[in-house]
């Protein structure tokens, strides 16, 4: 069976899940939602099929499971959004159209992704610019929960960090692919610790500095953890030196500890994380409390789709809520974005939550496998870096919602409502598929060293 046929079969569970989920939600809430909105599901499945046909034509050898796994996540997201508010599911399905257009453009116009290496400094500058843009007056958005994460263009809002994370990984992969020999060959050893030449290490200190700057100016611990984690992953793959990683992690922890005690917003987040039920917990502790309460409602199997308490009923609904549910008037704040994982655990239970985490783990497995199979240094670093940043993003937001780490405002990839996240992550997957297609392309017979991995 060819890779693409396996991909097609792997899309069948996606279709089943989507149909079953939409039906379940519709049955439970038919008195609130119109049957017209059921077509959002069909609309999404048609898009998946179109993407599959594109892959069949352009990347026949690419990993067969990456795209269906992402489609599965998106299907879960659509079903849960449909349960929260059917109009949101409609908008999200439309966002997938835009995302898949960019996915297609990436695949069509970037057949040789090595061109990215040539523009690495431009990409790096662009990424940092994107990250800093929310601080600019005019297009800079309001601080969301105290963090500067979004750009507002009239009705449209865009989270530049989503796109910037790809740019940063491309830059790091390209830079380290070139310098890795120099970095890993020890120049000096002082007291048993390998110190690379400062000339080569300098730009990497800049990356650490950038992460700290993000912490201070954008005031978001989660994004900066995501970026710096990806950096450490790429650095480790490039140099295979655990000492660099430990030194980097120590620097980050030191910096984060220092800044979290000086930047009030970050300090609050850490305090809430340490004890969300403290009598003097900072404002915003209620969000995490509600997240835990929602999960406690779920138990092993959950309350069932549409059955948990979300919209505040009758007299509990705040009169000040003019934006409408789910933007306010929900017992769990931001159920469609930051806290969608808590909704999933509440309604699908511990099993639902674990299944979702398993899908992310499988995507990580396929991504790292792609990195292992990739033929050259840049490809390996790019695949490993993109996979790491993707997995870290899922970890940072689920970890925040479950009180593993302080809560921050990143989206749950492919599941949360929001255009920039879907678009950026589809581009990320497109890049991984490009690397994968190159890695798994059958070599001309007789050429030595061709990987034979299915």
């Amino acid at each position, binding site marked *: 069976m060819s890779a693409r046929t396996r991909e097609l079969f792997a899309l069948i569970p996606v279709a089943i899940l989507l149909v079953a989920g939409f039906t379940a939600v519709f049955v439970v809430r038919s008195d609130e939602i119109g049957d017209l909105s059921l077509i959002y599901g069909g609309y999404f499945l048609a898009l998946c099929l179109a993407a599959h046909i594109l892959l069949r034509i352009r990347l026949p050898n690419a990993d067969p499971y990456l795209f269906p796994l992402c489609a599965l996540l998106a299907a879960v997201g659509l079903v849960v959004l449909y349960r929260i508010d059917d109009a949101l599911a409609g908008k999200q399905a439309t966002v997938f159209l835009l995302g898949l257009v960019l996915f297609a453009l990436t695949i069509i116009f970037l057949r040789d992704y090595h061109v990215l290496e040539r523009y690495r400094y431009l990409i790096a500058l662009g990424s940092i610019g994107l990250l800093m843009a929310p601080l600019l007056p005019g297009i800079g958005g309001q601080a969301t929960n105290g963090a500067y994460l979004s750009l507002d263009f009239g009705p449209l809002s865009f989270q530049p960090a989503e796109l910037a994370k790809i740019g940063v990984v491309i830059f790091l992969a390209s830079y380290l692919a070139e310098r890795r020999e120099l970095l890993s060959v020890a120049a000096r050893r002082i007291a048993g610790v390998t110190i690379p030449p400062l000339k080569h290490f300098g730009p990497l200190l800049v990356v650490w500095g950038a992460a700290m700057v993000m912490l201070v100016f954008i005031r978001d611990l989660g994004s900066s953890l995501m970026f710096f984690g990806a950096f450490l992953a790429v650095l480790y793959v490039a140099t295979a030196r655990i000492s660099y990683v430990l030194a980097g992690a120590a620097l980050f922890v030191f910096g984060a500890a220092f800044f979290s005690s000086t930047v009030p917003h970050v300090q609050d987040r850490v305090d809430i994380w340490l004890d969300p039920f403290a009598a003097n917990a900072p404002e915003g502790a209620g969000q995490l409390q509600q997240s835990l309460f929602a*999960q406690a409602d779920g138990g092993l199997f959950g309350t069932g789709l549409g059955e948990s308490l979300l919209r505040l009923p009758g007299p509990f609904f705040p009169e000040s809520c003019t934006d409408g549910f789910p933007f306010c008037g929900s017992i769990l704040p931001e159920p469609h974005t930051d806290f969608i994982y808590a909704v999933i655990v509440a309604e699908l239970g511990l099993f639902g939550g674990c299944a979702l985490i398993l899908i992310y783990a499988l995507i990580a497995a396929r991504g790292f496998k792609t990195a292992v199979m990739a033929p050259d240094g840049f490809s390996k670093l790019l695949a490993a870096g993109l996979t790491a940043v993707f997995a870290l993003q899922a970890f940072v937001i689920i970890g925040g919602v479950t009180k593993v780490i302080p809560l921050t405002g990143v989206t749950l990839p492919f599941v949360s409502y929001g255009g920039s996240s879907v678009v950026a992550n589809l581009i990320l997957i497109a890049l991984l598929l490009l690397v994968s297609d190159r890695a798994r392309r059958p070599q001309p017979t007789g050429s030595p060293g061709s990987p034979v991995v299915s």
Partner: protein
Amino acid sequence: MNVPIVRIFAVVLLGFGSLVYFTSKWAVFDADALEEKPENRRPVIEEQQIPRGDIRTVDGVLVAESLPQGRGPNAVFVRRYPEGPLFGHPVGYSFVEVNRTEIELSENDLLVGEENEFETIIDQLRDVPQEGADITLTIDSEAQRIATDGLESAVAANSGAFPGVGGAVVAIEPDTGAVRAMASAPGYDPNTVQNEDEFSRLQTAQGAPLVNRPTQSVYPPGSTMKVVTAAAGLDSGEITPDTVINADSPKEISGVPLQNAGGESFGDITATFALTNSVNTYWAQVGERLGTDTMVEYMKRFGFYADPELDYPGNQMAPSGAINSAGELVEDGFDVGRVAIGQGGEEGQALASALQMAQVAGTVANGGVLMEPTFLQEAKDPDGRTIEELDPEEQNRVISEESAATLTEMMTNVTREGTASDLSVDGVEFAGKTGTAEIDVQEGINQPWFIAFAPAQDPQIAVAATVERCNGCFGADVAGPIATAVMESLLE
């Protein structure tokens, strides 16, 4: 470069593992603790979305219902009590603002339709929303009204002299334990407590209207305690109805002289005569002959020294017994002669609730067997299936059938020719015992009691009634008429 990639994947899996661990912590292992956090409004809100079952009396009067506020799937249900103050006690209230009490609390699981896990899954599959069961109380609305009216007029007559004075009436079916009436004065209207200002006013109001006196307040039972002493004496073989004891006044009891009412000396009299005329010195001597251990043993058999086994919130019931000045139940070291006649001192004073004394009468009426008291006649689920039904349960055999029959005859003599001879119950022969606990001898302040059951030979109903304070009065003229009126209404 491949080894680091595999290691990073391992780290990623470790991270995801921690997510699974924490999710299971919140969703399963710590879920109960989280659900009980005061910050968690979910249980309260979810319960408001469930139509709570109706509460009716056994004769079909609607006592509590849930009315929807708002429409569609976002409606919440709010409690309404059509009869107002009449059932404020013992039904209580249930509002999200002030929580719930009394029967609304003790029968909460039935009223909100808490079912077992299996039925919940079946209902989910059938798409049946959770709905509470309707319950029928054993209370008779007419008897409740008569008890409340009688009590309130007695209280009103004395509230001038004693501001905030209250009283309690309990009527029990002897052979089933079914509570047929339970009145507490002063009362309150449960519809008003939803207003938090009104609620806090009631909490500190004079006379403590939110206290359900029949179960929560213990008082000196006065001479009604002599029924317990007589039961213990007869059943233990210490006395017979004809046992003669000298009942002059005063008599030294625990080294302190004890007077009969009015200082009257009776000479050598029988037990029947001593109960009929409520002779203190006779029964105090019986108490001393029985001794503390036997007296406490029989009190425990009657249900003293523990909360009544009523389906009612534990914090809204108080145990009866010998209680010292620190408010502790004591089983020895007290003046057993005085406790035997419903009195006592700092080291131990007989104190009993109206419910306890109604159970004493009910036990004698039921041939010496104490039945578990209950409020629940029946519970029906929303489909009309009966899910619970009154199932009379014996709590204890207190005295033998012969002792009970003898005591019944002695108590019947009280209403024939004794302290209660002015009382009548529709011409039916009935058994009773008056009590007049002296609260302040100098001022002549008493607490009147009457316990009774009727008809004497085929008892249908047992009653205890008490009013907290009156001046220069007796059990037979203040508490007696309330008790007989309640019995009359329940014998019809």
